[in-house]
């Protein structure tokens, strides 16, 4: 797909804003596209918790990683929104431009909120 400069800019602005939003939502709701088990070298689709299926001690033997899955979920969602924005009229560029510098800092604040449990231990 070839985009004009203006369409690319709309895509980039919408992608940046949507990525941040979807990342914060994925992080909050546990919407990982896949789960990585680095000790075993296994990747499973969706969000999986090792202690859900067996003894809780398995969490230490098979630590799971969601960060890759959250990032992938956000990237897929943002790609869809970005492509839609590229197809929409240019007059909406101002809206996407506003979103791209407002949404990411707000998503970062949401991530700080979601990290608070670490600081209560």
């Amino acid at each position: 797909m070839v985009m004009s400069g203006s369409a690319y800019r709309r895509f980039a602005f919408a992608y940046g804003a949507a990525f941040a939003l979807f990342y914060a939502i994925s992080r909050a709701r546990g919407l990982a596209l896949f789960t990585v088990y680095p000790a075993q070298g296994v990747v499973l689709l969706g969000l999986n918790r090792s202690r859900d299926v067996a003894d809780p001690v398995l969490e230490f033997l098979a630590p799971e990683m969601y960060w890759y899955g959250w990032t992938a979920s956000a990237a897929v969602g943002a790609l869809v929104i970005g492509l839609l924005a590229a197809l929409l009229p240019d007059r909406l560029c101002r809206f996407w431009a506003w979103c791209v510098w407002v949404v990411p800092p707000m998503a970062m604040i949401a991530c700080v909120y979601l990290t608070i449990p670490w600081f209560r231990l």
Partner: protein
Amino acid sequence: MATALLILHGLVAVSLLGAITHQTLATCASPTAKPYSFFGRFRAVRSAGFTNAIVVLYLTSWLLGAIVYLYFKVDVQPSLERDHHWHTLGFFDLKEDFAAIGLGVLPAYWSCWLQPVDGRSDHIRTALTLLLTFIVWWAFLIGHVMNNIGGFGW
């Protein structure tokens, strides 16, 4: 292997830190700075010239960090949890979150710097540059602290 990747990740991060700090100061320093002052010399460089390097360095650093993270989870995090470094782990989680959000912002940042600037995108360009600078500094400092606590051995 993990140590070599971590060192490479650190070297790329240092380059990225230098490039983005230079660009940010060149963008934000007062235009009335004296020509031979520190900021005057910073402003003399063409800040847009750093853009491609910053994008490539950010992507490289992110990719290397994503690979090293696998080793971290298996070899380092259990010992940090055993020693109750909860705050450090929380800050590290934020580093990962911020780095991912920065990755999403990268196309917009690139677009703002490469296309002709009007009054509106000038502000967005500055905002995105400041945001990425914060993310890069945060990631660098937390990564450094983490490495000092539970770094990889030879």
